[in-house]
């Protein structure tokens, strides 16, 4: 069926002098957002769901493209009859600003210089990413979203949306996420950034058209992968199995399957992701703190959405207690919030791979919201 192919679309806004004013005070424009949609927007425009991707995700959340047969990153969750049922809902996913998959980011051409931005790209925040997507939703003529949702960084964006634009969102499903980046989360990102920046090919971010800092980016991806899995799921998947050899090599080539796996996955990643984007997006995550100088309870005074918060027992990167603190602050503000901690071994990656439980919850939760 040809109409089952999805196609990325592009929306450009913020041409000078109407640039997007960033949280830092700097301006960015023009801004292009790459986005995809699934399902059909109803006539009243009341069935739209905005899905936000995680750090290295992109607008391709579901379905397949004509040329590349890789399904979207949340394909098991978005589609006809799935959790986000595209027979009922109109699902939108956009690549974040700072990204490298069609939206304006450090690899994009700076119209002022006709060269890639590199490090002259302004530091963006989660708030800025969300503000850019608000422009897209306005452009699509959607006044109110039935739901905003995402896992990990996607959850941060959904949360931020619910606080910035409370009148435009009826519900928010926040998965494996947090209300602020903690010291450990920042520290892990800093190691990843240092790996990129210590690669001699990084060249202070000015490597476009030359050789990319592939080794540094690969190391940061390896660190990321480790943090997305649980100790138990890694041991179950790889154990101490050797790769391509019968016995230990007594040298520094790869012995273990887990080593080859990390190498394979990170080599793939380097092909598809820009190192500077990794720096910018990880920074945006680290800057994230909805409470900033004020009290967490105060922050939720402005929220109005119905919330569903999902965590996973084995997720040590965004542990459940962080979401529980958020739930407590929401309850103090009499918000309608449901919370569940799903028992699973998959670690932080659970939001991508634990489909059964999440699907049940999301389907029921959305089904109880009249469209």
């Amino acid at each position: 069926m040809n109409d089952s192919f999805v196609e990325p679309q592009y929306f450009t806004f913020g041409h000078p002098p109407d640039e997007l004013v960033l949280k830092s005070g700097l301006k960015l424009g023009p801004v292009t957002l790459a986005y995809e949609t699934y399902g059909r927007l109803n006539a009243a425009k009341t069935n739209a769901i905005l899905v936000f991707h995680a750090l290295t995700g992109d607008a391709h959340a579901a379905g397949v493209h004509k040329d590349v047969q890789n399904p979207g990153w949340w394909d098991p969750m978005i589609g006809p009859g799935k959790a986000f049922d595209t027979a009922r809902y109109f699902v939108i996913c956009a690549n974040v600003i700072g990204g490298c998959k069609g939206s304006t980011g450090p690899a994009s051409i700076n119209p002022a210089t006709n060269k890639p931005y590199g490090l002259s790209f302004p530091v963006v925040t989660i708030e800025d990413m969300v503000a850019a997507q608000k422009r897209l939703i306005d452009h699509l003529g959607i006044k109110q979203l039935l739901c905003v949702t995402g896992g990990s960084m996607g959850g941060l964006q959904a949360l931020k949306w619910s606080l910035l634009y409370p009148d435009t969102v009826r519900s928010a499903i926040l998965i494996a996420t947090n209300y602020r980046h903690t010291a450990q989360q920042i520290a892990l990102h800093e190691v990843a950034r240092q790996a990129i920046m210590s690669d001699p090919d990084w060249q202070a971010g000015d490597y476009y058209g030359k050789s990319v800092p592939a080794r540094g980016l690969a190391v940061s991806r390896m660190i990321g992968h480790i943090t997305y899995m649980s100790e138990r799921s890694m041991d179950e998947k790889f154990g101490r199995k050797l790769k391509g050899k019968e016995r230990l090599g007594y040298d520094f080539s790869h012995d273990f399957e887990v080593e080859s796996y990390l190498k394979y996955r990170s080599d793939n990643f380097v092909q598809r992701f820009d190192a500077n984007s990794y720096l910018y997006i990880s920074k945006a995550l680290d800057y994230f703190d909805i409470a900033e100088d004020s009290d967490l309870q105060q922050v939720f005074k402005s929220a109005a959405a119905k919330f569903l918060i999902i965590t996973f027992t084995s997720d040590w990167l965004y542990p459940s207690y962080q979401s529980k603190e958020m739930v407590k602050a929401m309850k103090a503000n009499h918000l309608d919030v449901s919370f569940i901690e799903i028992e699973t071994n998959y670690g932080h990656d659970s939001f991508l791979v634990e489909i059964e439980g999440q699907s049940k919850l999301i389907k029921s939760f959305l089904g109880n919201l009249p469209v």
Partner: protein
Amino acid sequence: METLRPDHKLILEMIEPDSHVLDLGCGDGELLSLLMKHKHCRATGIEIDEKAIYKCIEHGVTVSHGDIDSGLEDYGDQRFDYVILNESLQEVLNPEKVIREALRVGKKVIVGIPNFCHISARLQIFFLGKVPVTKGLPYKWYNTPNLRFLSIKDFRQFCAERGIIVERERAIGASREVFFARNLFAYAAIFLLRK
């Protein structure tokens, strides 16, 4: 109207329409969804069992996954019109604290307890010399979720000693409501409490 569990029927009768209700140990949200449907209540639950949470969400009940002992801390004073502890008080670690907390967050508290001193239990202890298994307490000693065993009389005394006012007390027998000698003939009782 569908056939209701006798305890659910009595609880429904105790609750004013349009109330905000918190059910501690709400299970699959059956009681809360009845309250939403028949009394137009705003319903919130706390439940420890993950599988039951899926059912709650399916029923459109707002629910938090967690234990009763710590779950009440999240709520401010007199936040709910009613806090319900139906068939769950005997399973908590610290019932005294839970009742105190329930009376803090709720204007009224509804407690449903199984009666350990039903006549059939007394007879089993006396004649069989065994820990009783009854309609209200259908477990063996090795698989019961109950941590506390109390009678209707015990609970009345508990409330009296703490100055907790029992506004209403209704008791459930084998087939109908029990009005006389409740501590002997009721399998379970529902209390409506306030400070």
